[in-house]
């Protein structure tokens, strides 16, 4: 079966865009209630439980409330930019999803439909490009509000996001070294097992690139402005930072943007490091569309559904980790945040890239072909690196902390990051 082409392709793409946008917005809705429920559980309280069964309709009530509330316009605000900022906050987070493959290809009577909205050749460079403009929503919202709190929040936000973008981009370099391709579907295929076609690694990249996953996740956390990196909206100092002056639906759009960003980062981690839509220990879902249109594997509709479920499950688990971290780690001080970004992450990622590059050079000099053993050697190297990294970051806080007694409360940036 060939991939769809021509008019069917255009129709399928429009269908995917509509469907996917709806699903993403629903997921954002569910993520808000999910977060509040998990927060409630962690703090030993019920969370929202009044509207609908288990409080599930709370999101709808909130949505209606936000639609009906009064839109305020601060006197000092710069009107066009004040209105533009929420749009700029929500837009990048949603269109980022276009390059994420979310299920195995679906066979239809008109041809094979790949379950990705746009399989652009620049792959995750698109992710970096669109991710890098996400900062405009924060910066502009802060500046255009004409309030000191907002301005400080916007300043913090733009400095933080620019700083961690560097580490975010660099943490993906080992991934390119391994895959040799930047397209997301190809990265997913590389983590599956194939007997035909170009060689793959037969394992999720969480193993051969464990440390890379850590760096990507931490910088992704910083990019989404969530705890412990939520300095732009630190409520104890800045009311709510860059969106202090926003009310009703405009405020809601900032929130939707933030949750969409969380889901997007979770989905990216899934695709890059957790095998995408791959179902572990089952070879039936190994379906690959090569660039010349040849299809390896047997796509069926139920496999599409199953892999979609696997993708959703992995992404939701990662969203859970986001919420979990929120109530586990305290917020950084601003200088700690900057120190971590520029004085630790940047150097550590660069060293990591160098090590991985030399290891790959060594592996290829020895002559191990791409595949399970290749990944295993890299896994051992990563395990050693991860051990050294976490031990260095921990600095006797957790591992030997109990024996020596607690350290003074004023630790530094790396300390909170140890977990």
């Amino acid at each position, binding site marked *: 079966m060939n991939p769809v082409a021509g008019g069917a392709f255009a129709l399928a793409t429009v269908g995917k865009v509509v469907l996917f946008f709806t699903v993403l917005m629903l997921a954002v809705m569910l993520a808000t209630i999910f977060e509040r429920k998990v927060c409630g559980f962690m703090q030993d309280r019920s969370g929202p439980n009044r509207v609908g069964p288990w409080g599930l309709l709370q999101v709808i009530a909130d949505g209606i409330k936000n639609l009906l509330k009064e839109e305020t316009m601060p006197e000092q605000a710069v009107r066009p930019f004040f209105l533009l900022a929420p749009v700029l906050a929500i837009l990048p987070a949603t269109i980022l999803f276009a390059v994420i493959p979310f299920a195995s290809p679906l066979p239809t009577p008109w041809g094979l439909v790949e379950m990705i909205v746009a399989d652009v050749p620049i792959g995750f460079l698109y992710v970096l*490009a669109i991710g890098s403009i996400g900062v405009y929503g924060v910066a502009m919202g802060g500046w255009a509000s004409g309030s000191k709190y907002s301005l400080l929040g*916007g*300043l913090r936000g733009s400095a933080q996001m620019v700083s961690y973008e560097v580490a975010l*981009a660099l943490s993906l370099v080992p991934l390119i070294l391994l895959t040799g*391709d930047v397209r997301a579907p190809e990265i997913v295929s590389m983590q599956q097992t194939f007997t035909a076609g170009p060689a793959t690694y037969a394992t999720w990249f969480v193993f051969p690139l464990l440390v890379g996953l850590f760096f990507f996740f931490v910088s992704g956390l910083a990019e989404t402005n969530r705890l412990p990196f939520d300095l732009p909206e630190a409520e104890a100092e800045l009311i709510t930072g860059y969106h202090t002056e926003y009310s009703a639906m405009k405020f809601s759009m900032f929130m939707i943007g933030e949750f969409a960003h969380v889901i997007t980062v979770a989905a990216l981690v899934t695709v890059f490091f957790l095998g995408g839509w791959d179902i572990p220990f089952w070879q039936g879902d190994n379906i690959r569309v090569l660039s010349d249109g040849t299809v390896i594997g047997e796509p069926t509709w139920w496999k599409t559904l199953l892999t979609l479920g696997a993708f959703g499950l992995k992404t939701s688990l990662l969203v859970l980790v986001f919420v979990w971290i929120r109530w586990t780690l305290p917020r950084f001080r601003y200088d700690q945040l900057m120190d971590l970004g520029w004085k630790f992450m940047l150097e550590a990622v660069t060293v990591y890239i160098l090590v991985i590059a030399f290891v790959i050079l060594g592996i290829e000099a020895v002559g191990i072909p791409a595949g399970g053993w290749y990944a295993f050697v890299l896994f051992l190297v990563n395990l050693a690196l991860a051990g050294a990294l976490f031990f260095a970051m921990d600095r006797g806080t957790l591992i030997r902390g109990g024996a020596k007694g607690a350290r003074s409360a004023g630790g530094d940036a790396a300390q909170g990051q140890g977990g």
Partner: protein
Amino acid sequence: MIQDFLFQAFAASAILGAVIMVTRRNPVSAVIFLVGVFFATSGMFLMLDAHYIAAINVILYGGAIMVLFLFVLMLLNLGHADWRDLRGPVGGLVGGSISIAFLGVLTRLFVGGADARPVVEIAGGALREAAAEQGVVGVVARPLFQEYVIVLEVTGVLLLVAIVGTILLARGERT
């Protein structure tokens, strides 16, 4: 047809954004419209099959350099003038003369004979074929790291020296 339409849309928004950008007095509006121009030019790069350049254009200029500009403007808290504010006559005169000079260069390029054209010409679709063969990143990376590796490294060292020099100058005399 759709290609023509897209090109004209990108070109028109690039020119429009550039004109609006140079005529603003408020620096923040200028920055925002310049970002718009970068997006439009990225669109045109995409249509020329230069996917990598398009992405890098947005990542570096749209996402990093312009954000730094915006950051500095916000830090100094500049630009609370009304956003419709146009530049004064002096700015208009300088900007206008630069635009006319540049228009002259472009006109010579299009109207002038063969000797006015750039020397390098790439066959249509050559970039697309190369990209299909070695990926969009490979098309740029291979020449860069094989043929021109010395030049690349020297440029890198030069940039590093420039950065260190800037920091040294910016810190000034420390006693």
